């Protein structure tokens, strides 16, 4: 136990300041009222859905939870069920085999809700495109508010996308 406590003290605080919202990431004009966004802004619950990604974007979503980006420190946390969520964070081109699961997850998320598409594949189908097995971008299947490009996007970009979605449009 002594070693563990010593390590915690030695490590100190690594958290860096979060990025500012970026309006260029918004693809759908503000659907939610400012008052609701203010509530989301102080306590947001996110459900992640991998709709067919290569697992690259997932690595960076994990990173958003590390001590440097410390998303929980901003009052934002990942939850285990869409029933508890305010926002869906969706990765991947949507594979045809995930269409039903993605739509059901969207329907199971209570209103008001937001959708952020993470990664090049989620934005425009990426290298996988549209095919017999892939529906391409997330917006082809469910409505999307904000897109974050990158392969995979950096944790800062992901954080910025989430913060843009919950900030009021200027």
């Amino acid at each position, binding site marked *: 136990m002594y*070693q*563990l406590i010593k*390590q*915690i003290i030695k*490590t100190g605080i*690594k958290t860096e300041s979060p990025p500012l919202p970026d309006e260029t990431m918004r693809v759908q004009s503000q659907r939610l009222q400012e008052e609701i966004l203010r509530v989301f802004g102080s306590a947001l619950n996110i459900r*992640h*859905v*991998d*709709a*067919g*990604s*290569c*697992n*690259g*974007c*997932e*690595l*960076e*979503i*994990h*990173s958003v*939870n*590390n*001590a*440097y980006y410390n998303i929980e420190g901003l009052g934002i946390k*990942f939850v*285990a*069920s*869409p029933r508890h969520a305010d926002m869906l964070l969706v990765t*991947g*081109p949507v*594979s*045809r*085999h*995930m*269409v*039903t*699961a993605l739509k059901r*997850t969207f329907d199971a998320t209570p209103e008001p809700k937001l959708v952020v598409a993470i990664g090049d594949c989620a934005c425009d189908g*990426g*290298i*996988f*495109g549209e*095919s*017999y*097995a*892939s529906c391409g971008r997330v917006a082809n299947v469910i409505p999307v508010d904000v897109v974050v490009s990158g*392969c*995979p996007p*950096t944790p800062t970009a992901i954080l910025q996308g989430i913060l843009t979605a919950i900030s009021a449009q200027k």
Partner: protein
Amino acid sequence: MPITHPNLHLTKLAGAIPAWSGEIKPDDLQPICQSVQDGGGRLVALWGSDARELGNGFTLHIALVNETGLICLSVPLPDGQPGYPDVSRIFPVANRMQRAAYDLLGIYAHEGQDHRKWLRHGAWHGGSFPLRKDFDAAQSRIDDADNYPFVQVEGQGVHEIAVGPVHAGIIEPGHFRFSVVGEKTLRLEERFGYTHKGIEKRFESLTVQQAAKLAGRVSGDSTVAYAWAYAMAAESIAAVTPPDRALWLRALFLERERIANHLGDLGYLGNDVALSFGFAQFWILKEQVLRNNAELFGHRYLMDRIIPGGVTMDLAESGKRTLFKECAMLEHEVSVLRGIYEEHAGVQDRFIGAGRIEPKLAARLGLCGLAGRASSQAWDARVQFPCAPYDKLDVQMATYRNGDVAARVIVRFDELFESLRLQREILNNLVDDDKLSVPLEKLPAHGFGVGMVEGWRGEVLVAIHTDADGKLTRVHPHDPSWQNWPVLEHAVVGNIVPDFPLINKSFNLSYSGQDL
């Protein structure tokens, strides 16, 4: 010759790893597989191809490995009834691969015990096959709900828990069907294919260089391993050898991928036994590795740094100093954290004995990679078939015999330290070269090449077939998760349901890599 059989004539393939290819008749398939298995060999991959344009019907391809190298057999099958003798009785791991080969190409195993679909859910109808050259996507579309007959467990008090495809954590989608009594797991059955996005079909429309990008996205956490295996296969067909410095840099990238993934997994394994301290600490270290990757090589996960013919990024002297410093820092920090994990009674109590796979079962089921080594399966492509520069590095294989979560943690720690040692060796021996790559834009006609790389999870294989114009006519990427997923079904039997996330994490297998 790696194996001898009266009807088998093998040809040595050019390239970085010892590999042979040969054509056999369907009747010789089982005896040859049996003799490889009797000699301690394994089945690595099984796939099919459509050769009807050449008037050759279909072809079954099978990659076997023994201590001498890879043996790639092709079995021509008639157009009308493309059946072949079942090999899943000899190599149980072939079961899902045979079913996937049927879903995608319509070739099937005679007397196979399991004829259920595997990769197909409801996106295309059962009589159409996406990897056939005359596949019509629009005509084959249906939007039926998936209907899959799980094996039912009966008995008093037995009930099922269905989990997924959307999981509670930040992970890829797949379905797990548990049959339980109280908290105890009687049976687990996996159902995958949710992330099937047509990767193999997509390969066929890309040039050799474009396809390298796709290969690096078969499974994002193993992008270096896939990109290298793909490049190795292309270089094998073209009989091209990249510059020495490029090969050393590839090994540096591969070890850095192993370091980053092992750090991440060790953090999550702590998290899954309620030691969130472990997650916080290991992910600080992982982040530092990723930031150094971004600074020195321009990408946190080193995507697209390996191309057929060489690499795209060099390492400057100042970069070497950064990496030496990182090595020293990681060696110290990981030693401290290992001590904390080992002395933490709560952690060890959860790790020890959970999800145990005995060496005998591991051998029977073909468990490979890091999970295999934790169950005494001493296979590591860097050791058995050391391609340059591993032939100069003398990799020390980490093995353990207990086969439980604790063993897989120990192997991860051992491999992490070994990768740090290798990284230092690579930095010390990095040879100078004027060039980082040799041009490789076009492949010869009717070529076949194969590459195999020991990724952090296990052996990644990529096979490439070219057509009469030298274009990619069939590319098959193979993930070690094909081997290891079925073993997870055994690992959880008798364990309580709440230990499943921990056991699953200790394997950390890829969905995308096997769903393709």
